[in-house]
């Protein structure tokens, strides 16, 4: 029976947390004079109550699954990789750059995804090496690299990859390199298959391979893992590489699979935030590759439904964002408390040794 409880407890916690979030969100709306009921009806009816809404939720979930994987695989190894945002920009830039070349359809898209994954790995290489060989904390280095990537991408969008007749965006992805839409008249592309597939691969890797076991061991207890012969350097490099692949692909599937423009806008307005939202999604999904998929779909559904809260229930945009934030925060709480407990234990251990 205990294994059933072990499986169900996180689900139960998440559902409870979600209900609390909805309740607090309703109170906030009430306090500002909006009606929570029609707002929530709009939020959920549209996002999960119709085929079109569900397609929107899945489309929004696509990049989030991938950036959440970046954080999750890092967290499993005991690392706080905040760098998905920067890696994601690089992946998007690589996908756009590949459109400057000519290749047959299909192969072109495959090559673009491959290069985007490579770009993600490369962008994570320096923080990974700094961590592995110099002990530089990955939170600091990856945040700095996010900004480097942000401004490098700004430059690339405005100068190198810019559309010569429409300076507000990059060149659009070549037709041969676009991910086909799964449903016409929606935003849902083949990218969701790439994202869910990679989540499955990460799950198999982490729980059914020796290398994956070593990663989790390093996260659970670094001292014991090292004693057991696990190289901490190798683990860090491996985890960053995997995270780079996922985040690089996130940027690529977003520009290659999102109609109508298939390009990066100046100011990165169609990309910025996925990396950070991914951290929230990873928390909601209990940093488990398979938990991340429903978490991302839920999060994507919130985004899709939020668009309708404005239209159907007349709740202003800022209020929608606030309510969304409260729900996500509540859902992330169980995992956040667990992480803080682990951190606290680590500090105590260190304190005892000193």
């Amino acid at each position, binding site marked *: 029976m205990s294994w059933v409880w072990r499986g169900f407890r996180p689900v139960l916690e998440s559902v409870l947390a979600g209900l609390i979030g909805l309740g607090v969100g309703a109170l906030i709306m009430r306090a500002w004079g909006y009606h929570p009921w029609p707002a929530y009806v709009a939020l959920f009816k549209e996002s999960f109550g119709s085929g079109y809404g569900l397609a929107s939720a899945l489309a929004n979930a696509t990049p989030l699954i991938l950036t959440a994987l970046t954080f999750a695989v890092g967290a499993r190894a005991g690392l706080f990789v905040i760098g998905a945002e920067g890696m994601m920009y690089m992946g998007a830039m690589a996908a756009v750059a590949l459109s400057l070349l000519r290749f047959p359809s299909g192969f072109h898209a495959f090559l673009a995804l491959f290069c985007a994954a490579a770009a993600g790995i490369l962008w994570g290489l320096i923080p990974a090496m700094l961590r592995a060989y110099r002990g530089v904390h990955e939170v600091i280095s990856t945040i700095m690299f996010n900004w480097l990537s942000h401004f490098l991408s700004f430059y690339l969008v405005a100068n190198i990859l810019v559309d010569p007749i429409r300076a507000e965006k990059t060149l659009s992805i070549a037709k041969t390199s676009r991910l086909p839409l799964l449903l016409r008249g929606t935003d849902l592309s083949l990218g969701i298959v790439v994202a869910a597939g990679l989540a499955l691969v990460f799950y198999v890797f982490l729980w059914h391979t020796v290398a994956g076991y070593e990663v989790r061991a390093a996260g659970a207890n670094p001292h014991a893992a090292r004693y057991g012969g696990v190289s901490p350097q190798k683990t860090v490099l491996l985890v960053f590489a995997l995270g780079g692949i996922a985040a690089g692909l996130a940027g690529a599937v977003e520009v290659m699979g999102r109609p*109508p423009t298939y390009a990066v*806008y100046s100011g990165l307005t169609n990309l910025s935030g996925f990396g950070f939202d991914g951290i929230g999604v990873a928390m909601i999904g209990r940093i488990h590759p398979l938990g991340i998929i429903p978490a991302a779909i839920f999060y994507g559904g919130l985004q899709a439904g939020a*668009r309708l809260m*404005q239209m159907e229930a007349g709740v202003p945009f800022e209020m929608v964002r606030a309510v969304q934030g409260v729900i996500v925060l509540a859902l992330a709480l169980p995992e956040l408390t667990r992480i803080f407990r682990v951190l606290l234990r680590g500090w105590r251990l260190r304190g005892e040794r000193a």
Partner: protein
Amino acid sequence: MKRLGLVVVLVAFLALPVLAGRVALILDVGGRGDLSFNDMGFKGTEEACAAFGWEMVEIQSATSADYLPNIRNAARSGKFDLIICVGFLLADALNEVAAEFPNQRFAIIDAVVNQPNVLSIVFEEQEGSALVGALAGMLAAEYGYPYVGVVLGIEIPVLYHFEGGYRFGIDWGLKKYAEVTGKTANVGLLWVYTGTFSDIAKGKAAAEAQLEQGAVAVYNVAGPLGIGILEAVAAKLAKENREAGPPFMIGVDANQDWMGDGNKVVASMMKRVDVGCYTAIKMVHEGTFKGGVLSLGLKNKGVAISRYQDLLDFIDFGIKAGAITEADRERIIENWKKMRASIPEWIWKAVDELEAKILSGEIVVPKPETREEMLAVRAKYPLTR
């Protein structure tokens, strides 16, 4: 008894407020609170709704990936008599959705979408820019400043209208100065495309550089960057221990004369997005709506140089937006009147003269649409010292 029931139903029906129509206003990521483009769209829509008994639903976009779903959701709901997209960034998405929903009426501001159910509202920015250009040129000549300035956003074709008109206007103003005073002034143009419509710090830095070289006025052609430009103008004035310009900023889109206490923005090239939204709703309301391009210029009050009545209107706008308070009203009006009166009368007369000549068709302001045409205008009016 039956008849009584019928009467009751009829009376109840008549007593209900009649909703004449519904409009969805879809904004890009810039969103509300810019005191300019987007807020103007909201203002015009709100006014039209009040005038015609319509209801408005406002939809903001969190990221540019929201454009397509937001427009599509509004069209799918089938409850809007008109969907207005504010800004050229929404053009691609609208082009797609307009084809999917051929019976839905759409309007877009600042872009042309070639679909039979879309009213594309564009502006003759070059006409208004010529007026403020002439003003700036004459100010520089009159006050002995070596330059006039302009800070632009991203280099897109719409901005060529502004630059082209401004160049033409400066040139016209300098000729006018020579005609009136019999002296020639050596005035050049400082211009820069900052590549952004959001980085206020860049606007400030660009304006600082131009003011340092002696620009009498900096024309804001970059929306929110005007906040930075105004900061630079205020800092320059503070350094010289003065409150009122010169140097000045020239406002854009909305009437920005009230900003900076009423004496730092000499005039604004108003691009009346509000008139555009109002007109689109009016056309639907009166049954005259049809797809195509509607061009708003000086003639139909789509663009204009700011005057006293505009100042009063937009002080209300600023108070409503919370940027200034009621207590500031009188002071701003006084400052503005004093500032405008300090500029020689012949300059304002000359601006009026240029406006009349553009309206009568005697003068046609160049309207560059492509890079090649822009380069040709730059070559014709190089404005170097």
